[in-house]
């Protein structure tokens, strides 16, 4: 597949969404709502669940399955309230020493007048800063599109795992093409140049693992992913150097020393 074909695959409506992963991998999910400041954002779902017998905090970005749901979830583009809800849940997880698992799928943070009024920038900055400094194990799973700062806000994790056909990019290929090549139709070329595939991310060290999609959405797919996640989370539990290790994980990008 070309890079742009991967972008299209990552955006495909038939792919499992965050809630599918939550219901197939985790048990006893209890959803928590609201940022305790302004409102509840439909694009970000969060709460408590068990991974095997490990209690974890889950934060996912859900695009929605049908038109009505997509509208209520603003097509998976979180508003500031969503990131503030995520921050609240991360802090609660840290208080109770629970690992945090994020499931990311977004074309980017919501762009709108209200989002700007309520400080989209500040909300994303706060989410990145909170997540990167957590003392508990963190794991980010990128299942579809990882659009820029809006995705990074939930991906400042100890490890980032990407589905085989997921993409992670600083800007959408269409946005890049319209700025640089003055033509959104050059998106395919831009996608190639941006190096946004899972293999690229693995090569840069931006991702640690690629999850094969051979049987995407099947019971075997979820059970194998579950056991990998459980193993990873268990290996990080009880350690007291996770925040520093995570700092170094991000420190290495473009390091001069």
């Amino acid at each position: 597949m070309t890079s742009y074909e991967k972008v299209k695959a990552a955006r495909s409506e038939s792919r499992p969404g965050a809630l599918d992963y939550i219901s197939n991998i985790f048990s006893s999910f209890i959803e928590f709502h609201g940022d305790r400041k302004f409102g509840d954002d439909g694009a970000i779902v969060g709460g408590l669940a068990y991974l095997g017998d490990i209690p974890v905090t889950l934060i996912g970005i859900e695009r929605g399955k049908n038109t009505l749901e997509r509208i209520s979830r603003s097509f998976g583009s979180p508003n500031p309230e969503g990131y503030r809800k995520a921050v609240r849940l991360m802090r609660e997880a840290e208080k109770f020493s629970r690992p945090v698992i994020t499931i990311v799928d977004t074309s980017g943070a919501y762009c709108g007048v209200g989002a700007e009024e309520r400080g989209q920038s500040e909300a994303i900055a706060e989410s990145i800063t909170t997540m990167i400094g957590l003392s508990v194990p963190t794991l980010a799973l990128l299942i579809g599109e990882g659009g820029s700062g809006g995705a990074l806000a939930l991906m400042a994790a100890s490890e980032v795992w990407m589905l085989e056909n997921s993409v992670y990019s600083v800007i959408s290929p269409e946005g890049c093409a319209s700025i640089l090549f003055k033509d959104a139709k050059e998106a395919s070329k831009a996608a190639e140049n941006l190096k946004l595939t899972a293999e690229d991310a693995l090569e840069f060290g931006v991702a640690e693992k690629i999850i094969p999609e051979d049987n995407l959405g099947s019971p075997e797919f979820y059970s194998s992913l579950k056991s990998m996640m459980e193993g990873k989370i268990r290996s990080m539990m009880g350690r007291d150097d996770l925040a520093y290790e995570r700092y170094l994980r991000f420190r290495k990008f473009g390091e001069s020393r």
Partner: protein
Amino acid sequence: MAINFPYRPKNELERHGRGGEPRHGEKELTCPNCHRTLSESILENNYYICSCGYHYRIGARTRIEMIVDPGSFEEMSESIKPNDPISFPGYGEKLEKARRESGEEEAVVTGKATIGGIEVMLFAMDPFFMMGSLGSATGEKITLVFERAIEEHLPVIGWSSSGGARMQEGLLSLMQMAKTSGAVKRHSEERLLYISVLTDPTTGGVSASYAMEGDVILAEPGATIGFAGKRVVEAMTKEKTDRSFQTSRFVFEHGFVDSIVERSDERRILYELLSFHTGR
């Protein structure tokens, strides 16, 4: 483009007349707000503020010289320069153009200086270098400022001026948002002060990381500050935005900056803030 100012600022030019006689053959600048043309030496003597109050965009070095004690600036990390990590087409030429236009090797100048005798680590972004975009070397230089500030137990002042992450470096520039945020957090955990000054423009990945993470956040008048570009928002909502949208006044009114400070007053305010926090 008209800039909507909340008030007519006090202005050195209006109070004391012209700052100097124009030098022969000197460059003249036309104000994008009031269209008045003034020679560069006049503007230079007035912090590059037009008589209408418009704050011209200025280079990183000009800004640092304006604020810190004369001769106190020691630059660091001069040798850190951008490379082309993902071999992005046209990036090399873009960098060449940026170097020519700004006279800088990167979109940020960093170092140590004193303000009223108080030692401080600082970084100033340069809008003339690829619109201050955040690349790997930019992020590295800023991270090193915070790390050295931790080692030497010093406050940090940072002037942001950026259109956002540098797309020509792909994911590696996105990672700089997390890297710099991590450094800000570690600096903060040492209970050290970070003052962030938002100048025109502070948008995208820079506003969504270190620019919005200051203990104190100041903004220059009339700066564009926001996450998504105005045109992106308009395309999304299919409505024209108000002309005050994403200005300093807009983010101030919504509670995201502590104060809007005119450039002519910045040195004094920064000195007072530093004094409060260093117990002088």
